[in-house]
């Protein structure tokens, strides 16, 4: 994405599960916790709903990093969605790293609804990691 100032600012898209992570992010907002604004949030009902293709599609559209966050294991509102998500993303992360996409670009976390501060910390970490890496490789970004 084109930088707004001379310094490069990454764009991160995040998929937050409605019941835990999104609520955690909301708590961070209500508590007036300051964190970087490079993150764009997409609310999904469960982390298990996140199709790995969404992540690849986001990278294709030029975002520099993706964060997927769900409920802690054992706390999923739909009982087992986050377990299936964990398996899918373990494989996806290894696979993307294998073909040459930096592993810090696609990150996964568990954030509960009470962890507003922790959500802000994770977001800052992801943004800093991606800022160091620079813009995503141009050949994966769709031009046509």
């Amino acid at each position: 994405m084109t930088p707004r100032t001379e310094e490069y600012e990454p764009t991160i898209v995040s998929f937050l599960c409605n019941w835990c992570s999104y609520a955690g992010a909301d708590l961070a907002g209500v508590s007036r916790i300051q964190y970087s604004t490079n993150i764009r949030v997409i609310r999904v009902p469960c982390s298990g709903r996140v199709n790995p293709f969404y992540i690849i599609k986001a990278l294709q559209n030029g975002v520099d990093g993706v964060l997927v966050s769900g409920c802690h294991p054992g706390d999923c509102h739909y009982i087992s969605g986050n377990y299936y998500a964990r398996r899918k993303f373990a494989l996806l992360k290894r696979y993307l790293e294998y073909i040459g996409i930096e592993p810090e670009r696609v990150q996964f976390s568990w954030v509960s609804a009470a962890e507003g501060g922790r959500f802000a910390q994770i977001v800052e970490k992801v943004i800093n990691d991606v800022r160091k890496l620079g813009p995503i490789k141009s050949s994966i970004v769709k031009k046509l």
Partner: protein
Amino acid sequence: MLNEIRQTVKKLFNENKIDVFIGFCEGTLPLRTTPCFITTADDTDKLVWNSFCTNNLAVYLPRFFLPKPRGKEPKWPRVGILVNGCTGRSLVGLLQEKQIPRENTVIVGVPCDGMIDIKKIKGIEIIEGTEKKGSIIIVDKTGKEKELKIDSLRADICLSCSCFVPPVYDYLVKGKGKETVVPYNGVEDFEKMSRQERWSFFEEQISKCIRCYACRAACPNCWCKECFVDQSLPRWAGITNDISDTMFYHIGRIFHQAGRCVDCGACVAACPVGIDLRKFTYKLIMDVKDLYEYEAGLSQEEPPPLVTYKPDDEQEFMTEP
């Protein structure tokens, strides 16, 4: 071995146990056989079995058993199929995913010692080729004959195969299968390369792709009535010649094989431009084995890894602040 195959199939037709048999017949091009569908006992003499039978015949099974019409009993044919190790594993995968009914399938297993890879014969324009006792005699355009040992031409994927006999069968033809297994190190070697080198290799392989979808057509696991590539809402892999669309197609198709790919090599053999797909598919096979101790196509009862979970699955990859 070939006689026994033909006798078994003839007996199946004479005893009216099958309606159609899927096997290999003489091909029209040199050094190739063609899959064929026999329907009478007289045609069984057309069947062949040699080192040119590279196709994975399990890809033809799901189309015989299309979903049942509403309110009526399905009139599915009884299908016989000739399987070797890798085809048999694909068949078990199809049974697991309920794409074929076991009662309507008659499996004739044959031990396999590997097929040749035509791409390994370089520099000769082949007009005719015959197999004879461990070698292939090739006749080129000028009429000159050349003898090549089959062991030097075997496909890499066959060299590393450890499944010489299919995991499930109704009849097993007697014969000698493979004896040695050469392990495949492509993934480990690839991981030693730097990140930029790996991306450049991936980009270079993908840029060869002409989006013919032969890999998808040859793969028995790609039985979906609507493939993600054909979906227009959402449009996952666009139909432009932008390399990012082709990258999406390959990343997507190979990821859809996670936990299902049996490493049969049909996609690699089918690719007209010679993309090294195995380097990428094998990584997922290794990861599934490493993380979830699962190998596709061996057991019908074991659930596939992505439809099950354990509460203590590996989560080293998760981000902590």
